[in-house]
């Protein structure tokens, strides 16, 4: 029982990272039916930008709150710019072409980000400052919870809450949901569809970057290939929750995090991806609209 709860804590922590990336997939896919393969790699870019600021620029020596704000905000903005560039340069010319062409391009963009990152930051594993946040923790019964875990989960929840408030509470957010139904009708409301798509790409990138920095803080080590598996797991989460469905993506992220933690805990770390992919394939075959139903635009 103690083990189980311990794994649950770990799973929820990691799951919140996946949820953030999954939200990026889900928002973009919901609007333009594009699997932005680069989503996981955007997370990696965010992690490296944060690392550059903290370690290379030495911001880790600033007061902790200031350091954290810089380490989150700047990578989020930088990654958003990268994602906008990808949209404008690679996806936009292809949106009305065949699905195959867009998928291959998205894959190409993922590779491009990975290998550009390798070129810029090198192929070595880099390390976040290990004691940026106090590594201590406390026990709840037999379960050990660290302050880092609490801080990161709270931060993710805040980001997700902000996103939900934006999507549910503002007219632009409403417009984003409307795009999942009907692009032409949205145009007839005076909605600048291209601008809303850009907003979705910015939001997706910012969430991914935040999760990247969190991963850096949590696992300490980062590598230019880290986005690949992260992206796959997050995509699985998005599909599990029903693509286009925002609460679904969050729940899906948590589920994948838990699944991974239990697999690692009870079985072996070497099997975790087999289990995750097994779940993905099973969900897609048994219930392709996900556990919570999907909300997706018709293909334009």
């Amino acid at each position, binding site marked *: 029982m103690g083990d189980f709860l311990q794994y649950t804590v770990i799973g929820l922590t990691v799951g919140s990272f996946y949820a953030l990336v999954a939200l990026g997939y889900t928002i973009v896919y919901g609007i333009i039916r594009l699997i932005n393969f680069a989503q996981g790699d955007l997370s990696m870019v965010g992690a490296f930008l944060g690392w550059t600021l903290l370690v290379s620029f030495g911001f880790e020596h600033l007061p902790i709150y200031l350091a954290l704000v810089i380490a989150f905000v700047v990578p989020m903005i930088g990654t958003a710019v990268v994602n906008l560039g990808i949209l404008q340069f*690679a996806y936009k010319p292809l949106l009305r072409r065949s699905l*195959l062409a867009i998928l291959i391009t998205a*894959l190409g963009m993922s*590779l*491009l980000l990975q290998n550009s990152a390798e070129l810029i930051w090198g192929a070595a594993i880099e390390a976040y400052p290990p004691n940026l946040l106090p590594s201590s923790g406390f026990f709840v019964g037999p379960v050990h919870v660290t302050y880092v875990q609490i801080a990161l989960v709270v931060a993710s929840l805040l980001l997700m809450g902000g996103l939900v408030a934006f999507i549910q509470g503002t007219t632009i957010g409403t417009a984003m949901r409307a795009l999942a139904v009907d692009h032409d009708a949205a145009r007839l409301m005076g909605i600048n569809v291209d601008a809303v798509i850009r907003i979705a790409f910015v939001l997706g990138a910012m969430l991914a970057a935040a999760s990247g920095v969190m991963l850096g803080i949590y696992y300490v080590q980062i590598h230019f290939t880290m986005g690949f598996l992260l992206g796959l797991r997050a995509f699985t989460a998005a599909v599990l929750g029903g693509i286009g469905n925002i609460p679904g993506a969050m729940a899906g992220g948590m589920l994948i995090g838990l699944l991974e933690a239990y697999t690692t805990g009870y079985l072996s770390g070497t099997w975790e991806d087999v289990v995750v*992919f097994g779940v993905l394939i099973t969900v897609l075959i048994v219930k*392709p609209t996900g556990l919570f139903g999907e909300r997706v635009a018709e293909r334009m």
Partner: protein
Amino acid sequence: MIAQLTERPVGRVYATVRDRLGRTPYWSRVVVSLVAIGVAVIFWNDDYVTAVAVSVATYAMLGLGLNIVVGYAGLLDLGYAAFFAIGAYTSALLMTQAHWNFFTTLPFAVLFTGTAGAILGYPTLRLRSDYLAIVTLGFGEMTRITFNNWEYAGGPNGVLGIPWPNFFGYELNTQADFFIVGLFLLAIAMIFAEHLDHSRLGRGWVAIREDEFAAESVGVPSLRLKLFAYVMGGMWGGLAGAFFATRIGAIDPTSFTFQLSVLILIVIVLGGTGSLPGVLLGALVVVALPELLRELSDVRLLVFAILLVGMMLLRPQGLWPRIRRKPKPFYGLQEEEPEDVAARILREHQVQMEERDRRHAAAGHKVPAAGEILLEVDGLVQQFGGLRAVDNVSFSVRRGEIFSIIGPNGGGKTTLFNCITGVQRPKRGRVLFDGRSIVGLRPHVIVSRGIGRTFQGIRLFKNMAVFENVMVGLYPRHRTMTWQAMLHTPGERKDELRTLQESRRWLSFVGLESMAGQLASQLSYADQRRVEIARALAAHPHLVLFDEPAAGMNPTEKLELVGIIRKIRDLGITVVLIEHDMSLVMRVSGRIAVLDHGILIALGKPAEIQNDPAVIEAYLGREDDDMGRLTAQEA
């Protein structure tokens, strides 16, 4: 016509030369060119060059396999390395554990990977294509991780000490030996791939890639063909894997990463998806480019990523695209006089009809004679949410008549067609064709029962030539098996020739023989409609359903269409028409049904319909709709 005139003479000469070359058997061209390459490389006598050439051959084999899945069938497979791995491990384990000879392991490697393709393919066939890409990616990773965790296969260390192949006592152990074996296997892979490309299977795959829904609706069993694509693609990967294992001598899971899957994808995207010479070129670039740019080896993948995106944006057809346009598609076929063509079509059609009627009667069913009921729709209901698109509609169509369905927009006409052709399953009601229920059958099965159709918005296979479009329509009538197609057996050749001849006749039937070699998308709107009609007729249906065939046609074209419809009826084919052009409908129809709000409001001869108050009301509104002329003052 215009396109041909404006083509530059150089292009024309080139096309003619290519055409001539295209008439020598493909296997001879492959053998000649590969022998030439082989001789050149061996005389170069440089182990390094030979080794690179062996790698090119391996990648080319992989590319040929992936090309079947991605290039032909249009299914993005991001886990293709899994097949390579399964082939390599099968062969390696059989050689090291069971001490088999390399060549005897080959069939098993191919068999295992084919099976793996079926296992992956079967449950995932109905997925939409972007999800499919992710599932294949997951499959690739799962396979690699499974090998990594599998003790018997050496776990992370893999299989070591794989022996050299032994060919009747001669041990193949130099780069040159491997090169020869590699070329030999590549030649087989290429010849088979080319034969498939030019068989009904290849056309079916491309049709699915172009428009799966239309393919299914003209008789291509899309699910089965997609499964086939996976199986075939897997087999090529298995062959390459086995070759790779024996050549390297030791394999481990790191040889089969996602990166490899992506590299193979790059091979076919660079060369041009669907193009066989393109695959060779792509393999050459992917293998040789990094060798040439040694100092840039760090950014090898970056360069490929840029190439991949750049190709998609700037030259999506690839460096050496597959050209489906053909200047003289019927070259070498026996010429036929136009009157002869009509007579042959009629004779062939009668033979087909009689044959079908005979089979039908032999199976214990009643065969409707001319004027008897062929299609019976009884109490059909189709509902979307709260809206009844088709509401308790009953009517029957008699064999040999021209029957029209008209009605205001949103009346439920196309929904009715979709229910008859199996695209949708009606909520309630019966549809009997030839006395047998066809509700719940898949569209391609209904086609083979003898119902053809065209679509409201034209749905041709745009990037296929016109004659190929019609040949796809002949899919249900082929009798040859896949292995015959792969070997290009005399029986298959005869079947292909017959199909080509028939597609030519049908095109001449609708007056488009001269356009046969062009891409479908190059034709004018009216001509595309006619190709669609020819495609629907090619399977010799009993009944054809035309959905707004005259839409967008000018008066002259409409007049020609009336002629074609009558010619079809004269063949003995029953025609059901949805059409908005009332004069056309009134001219050709024997009887007319009117649907409004999903309800059948009238059924009768044209003159009756034109004067039916209910019909006038449906189109114009009711007399008392004048609402006492509301005016600004009143409101």
